[in-house]
Structure formats: structure tokens, C-alpha cells
């Protein structure tokens, strides 16, 4: 894929924040006639940025509409209010064609225009510009020369640029998620785009699969498989599909976690008695015990700077979350609300962590500030498991259950925007949001 920056037609000035107050809880719906995907979102940020996305010139001839993918991405974030371009005629494709008062009149603060033009060797040139409707200036403009198979990823990249320019945060639409699908007796570890499309099966098994964990570079997954009639940890390359056993010791082998530098992983082993956390090299060598309790120690997770490890332990009676230096040593308990706190995951800035908290008979996703200990429950679903942050820290992906079926759900880290995702048949579970892709 080739990307070129397009110079603004008008003088660019520094973009001022474009916010408009959303007075009521807003429900957005996009139905794409070209696929079975329905995106429905409940809630939204308190301040949503009104942005209009004009269908790109000639994209009607494509199998996939670029702008509908971009729109769906932006809507899922909950941070945008999409302004309907219907009725504006002719639609603008170039800056000179934009009649700004028309878009201003519809309440748009930003406008996306573009075109898809057939290029050499069966490729296409996708051009897009993000315009500031108030200042009548260009905020970003790029052209991509791509093959038809790259339309989706290009749309996600465009959505990332729009998101970054308008919110100031890193976009996460061009990232991957991993999860387990169970259909009947069949388990599949799948990796898809963050919007659930372009799913690829990494492993298929007729015994349980669980705990997929991304290496920091996004090239490998560690996971637990029961194919040897007990939990054994594997590491698999996504590029080649090659895999090897990471840990297959006497007893149970579970709960892998990569260190951010990729040089070691934590795993939970029972080879010396109770479930304890060990460090191990990615090739399965050099195993060393890292926690020393007679209780359960499991669910290790490392801080983004690699200095700290969070884990679940019932050394105090019930399961609670503890923190210790990655270099080893004593652990300090960090959760005190409630009798069951498990599955900790650091936020990308390392300042907080997301986890599962039991409340009565329900399990909710909660986030805790590591400095002041403040806890916020993010969800009102009932049987939540396996939370993980998006790599920009703005969303949390997790598994939950609706009507006895396993589904994936996401919630913004402020708890305001919620979405649910489900496959049409079967249970989906054990999601893990992958890292930012640098390509």
C-alpha cells in the first residue's frame, strides 16, 4: 500500500476543538445493506463531535463502501455524532466543491470528502480529505493506492486519522482482536479486525481453547489448549501459523502473559504444588518461580513499562488483586472493595487497571485508579469476564452473557458508550484487544 499526503487547498491553521453538547442520551443506528453487519450503539460521550461524511466519488461501484466502514468505526467510539449528508446535491469530492454554509447549517463541525479512482494494475487510488467546516480549512488529506483486498484496512486507517485529528487521541480502528468461538463441540481461536470483520481462524480444536494473549508486537499469540486432556500453554506465530508448547509441566499450565519487551512470559503452573506464577522464555526454556505463596496466584499482567505485575491471589482468603515488582519480591494487595476481584489488566498509560468485580451474584467490569484507589464499575451486564483495554485506553472489550449465550461487548472507559457483539451462532468469549499496528 502506498500512502501520499495531500496538501491542503487552503491555508491550514491549528485545529480548534470541535465540540457540541449532546443534551440527551443518543442512540445511533447504522444498517449496511451490503452485509449482515448491524451496528447499534447505546449511549455516547457527553461531548460528541458532529462530523459529516460525504460518500466518496465512485465508491458506489465498489463491493464495499469505504465511507460506511469509516462511519461505523467512528460511531462505535461514541465520540462522534454523524451528520446526515442526504439531500446535499451535488455531493462534493474536492475542496473547491464544498459549500461550507450548507454543512454548517446541518450542524457539522468537520466534513470528510473523497474519491475512489481506478489506478494501474487493477489497483485503486483512494483519496480523502478531512475539512474544518468552521474555519474552512483542511485538517488532513491523504491518498492511498491499494488493491481491492485492502479496502477495509484503508477505511480503518482513514477512520484512525479522523479520530486522531478530531479528538487528539490515537485511533484504534486499524487494530486486531483475538477471541474464542465455541460452536457445538468445536472451539476456534480467531483474530479479526477490531470491528469483528475479516476474521481468520488461528487454531481449531475439539477441546477447549482459552486465554489468548498478544505479544506486544502483535506477531504472536500465547493461549491455553486442552487438546492434551489438560491445560497446556502454546505460543503461535500469526504470520506463519507455526506453534510450539510454551509450558506443559506436571499438573495444570495456564494464564500466559507477555512481558512488554517480549523476552519472557508469565504463566501459572502447579508443578510444585499450588497454582503459582512463573516466568518463562518464549521458547519454553528458563522457567523460574516468581510468586511464593501456599495460596492461588494466577492471572499475571505486566504494566506497559514492564516494571510491575498485577495478579489475582486468594492468599488473604478470597480472590483479590495484588501488585508486585516485575523484578520479584513482596506483593501488595490493591483491591479492597468486595469479596471477589479478579482478571486485572493494566491500562495503556499504566495508571489504572481494569478487572472483574463480583457484586452479589453478578460480575461487572470495573476500573481502579492505582494512585488513589478509586473504583468505577463500568458495566451493567451480569456475567462479565476477560476485560482488556483498547491500545488507546478509551474502550474496554470484555465477554459477557445474554440469554445464556456468550457474546463480546465493549464499553468506553468512562462507562458512557456501550456496544454488544455476537456471532450469529455459537458462543464468543475470551476476547483480547491487540496492540497498535505500526504499518
Amino acid at each position, binding site marked *: 500500500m502506498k500512502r501520499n499526503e495531500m496538501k491542503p487547498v487552503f491555508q491550514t491553521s491549528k485545529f480548534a476543538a470541535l465540540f457540541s453538547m449532546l443534551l440527551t442520551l443518543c*442512540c445511533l443506528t447504522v444498517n449496511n445493506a451490503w452485509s*449482515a*453487519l*448491524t*451496528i*447499534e*450503539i*447505546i449511549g455516547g460521550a457527553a461531548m460528541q463531535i458532529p462530523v459529516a461524511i460525504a460518500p466518496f466519488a465512485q465508491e458506489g461501484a465498489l463491493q464495499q463502501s469505504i465511507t460506511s466502514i469509516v462511519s461505523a468505526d467512528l460511531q462505535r467510539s461514541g465520540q462522534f455524532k454523524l451528520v446526515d449528508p442526504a439531500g446535499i446535491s451535488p455531493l462534493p469530492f474536492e475542496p473547491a466543491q464544498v459549500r461550507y454554509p450548507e454543512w454548517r447549517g446541518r450542524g457539522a463541525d468537520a466534513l470528510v470528502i473523497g474519491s475512489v479512482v481506478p489506478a494501474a494494475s487493477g489497483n485503486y487510488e483512494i483519496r480523502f480529505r478531512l475539512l474544518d467546516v468552521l474555519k474552512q480549512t483542511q485538517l488532513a488529506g491523504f491518498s492511498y493506492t491499494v488493491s481491492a483486498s485492502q479496502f477495509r484496512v484503508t477505511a480503518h486507517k482513514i477512520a484512525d486519522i479522523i479520530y486522531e485529528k478530531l479528538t487528539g487521541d490515537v485511533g484504534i480502528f486499524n487494530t486486531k482482536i483475538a477471541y474464542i468461538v465455541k460452536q457445538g463441540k468445536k472451539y476456534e481461536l*480467531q483474530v*479479526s479486525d477490531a*470491528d*469483528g*470483520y475479516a*476474521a*481468520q*481462524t488461528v487454531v481449531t480444536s475439539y477441546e*477447549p481453547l*482459552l*486465554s489468548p494473549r498478544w505479544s506486544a508486537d502483535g506477531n504472536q499469540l500465547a493461549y491455553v489448549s*486442552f487438546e492434551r*486432556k*489438560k*491445560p497446556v500453554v502454546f505460543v503461535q506465530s500469526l504470520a506463519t501459523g507455526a506453534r510450539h508448547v510454551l509450558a506443559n509441566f*506436571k*499438573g*495444570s499450565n*495456564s494464564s500466559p502473559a507477555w512481558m512488554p519487551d517480549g523476552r519472557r512470559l508469565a504463566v*501459572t503452573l*502447579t508443578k510444585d504444588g*499450588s*497454582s503459582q506464577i512463573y516466568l518463562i522464555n518464549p521458547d519454553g526454556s528458563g522457567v523460574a518461580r516468581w510468586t511464593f505463596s501456599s495460596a*492461588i496466584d*494466577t*492471572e499475571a499482567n505486566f504494566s506497559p513499562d514492564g516494571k510491575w505485575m498485577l495478579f*489475582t491471589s486468594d492468599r488473604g482468603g*478470597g*480472590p483479590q488483586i495484588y501488585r508486585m515488582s516485575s523484578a520479584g519480591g513482596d506483593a501488595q494487595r490493591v483491591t479492597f472493595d468486595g469479596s*471477589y476481584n*479478579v*482478571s486485572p489488566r493494566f491500562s495503556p498509560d499504566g495508571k489504572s487497571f481494569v478487572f*472483574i468485580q463480583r457484586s*452479589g*451474584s*453478578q460480575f461487572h467490569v470495573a476500573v481502579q485508579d492505582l494512585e488513589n484507589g478509586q473504583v468505577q464499575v463500568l458495566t*451493567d*451486564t*451480569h*456475567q462479565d*469476564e*476477560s476485560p482488556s483495554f483498547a491500545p488507546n485506553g478509551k474502550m474496554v472489550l470484555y465477554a459477557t*452473557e*445474554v440469554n*445464556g449465550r456468550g457474546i*463480546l461487548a465493549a464499553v468506553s472507559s468512562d462507562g458512557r458508550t*456501550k*456496544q*454488544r*457483539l*455476537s456471532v*450469529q451462532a455459537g458462543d464468543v468469549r475470551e476476547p483480547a484487544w491487540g496492540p497498535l499496528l505500526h504499518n
Partner: protein
Amino acid sequence: MKKNLLLSVLMVSFLAACASHDVKEQPKAAVEDRTAAAAAPAAATQPAVQSATTGNPLKDPNNILSKRSVYFDYDKDVVKEEFKPLVEAHAKYLQAHGDVKVTLQGNTDERGSREYNIALGQRRADAVKKAMNVLGVADKQIETVSLGEEKPRKDCHEESCWQENRRADVVYQGE
């Protein structure tokens, strides 16, 4: 292999989304009726270890050795009194057959973290192993593993299934 996972995102009223699950302590009588009580008469009338000519005692439905499951209370790993005859019978068999090996598989119900449940299931298997060790079974005859909540015997989302799933199973090598 490439597949398209078609995801649908359902807008749901989060207030009326799904019925909550009640956590009930398991009725003790139900457990006894299902396993120990049914097994106990067999234990009283049948020797735990039979001669080879009378068939495989491990498969004989009238022999307590055919009973393989020790059930646990929610979030607990204590081997209850009612399952001690079962554990003792298998311990005797293993002592009499020093070359026989077993795997003790710990299981949990579906509630809570899958990874924590692997650790909890392990502890249940370990509790049965400890009881067998006390009765003289050698460590080398036993491996304890956990299947966590991944292999439920019953697959509903309420206590009637959960109580079946909180258990440790005795699995003889080759079975």
C-alpha cells in the same frame, strides 16, 4: 483458513437485558441422593477390590469404584464427609495396584474468571489427592490437573447444573 465472522451488535436496553442469576447454596440432600447415598449401599455389600475373574471392578456399576466424582460446595475445596467412602475405596485400589495411575481432574461451575477457575479446580483435585496420600497412596500414582469451568457435565446456567460441575473426577490411566 479465512472466514468471515459476521458480528451483529445488538442495541439492548441495559436495564431489561437479561435475567440475573441467583446464587443459591446447593441443597445438601440433593447431592447425597445423587451420589454418596446411592454409592454407600454398594460399598457396604461389595468389596472394593475384586478378583480379576469377576470383571473389572472399576466398571462394575454395583462397585463403589465405578463412582468417580467428588462434589464440592461453591468456592470450596473441602472433601465432604459423604465422599470419604468413595475416596477411601479408590485409595485402597491404588495401594493394591501399585502400577496403576490416576489423573484427578478438578472442575468448577461457570461463575467467575476462567483462569481463576482453573486454579480453583486444581485445588479440588489436590484436595482429593491429599486425602488419598493420607491413606497411603504414593505421589507417583497420581497426577492432579484442572479443567476449570471448561468441561461442564451439565450445561445450564443455574444451581441444578452448577452443583454437578463443582467436582473432581477420578480417571484411571487408559480410560
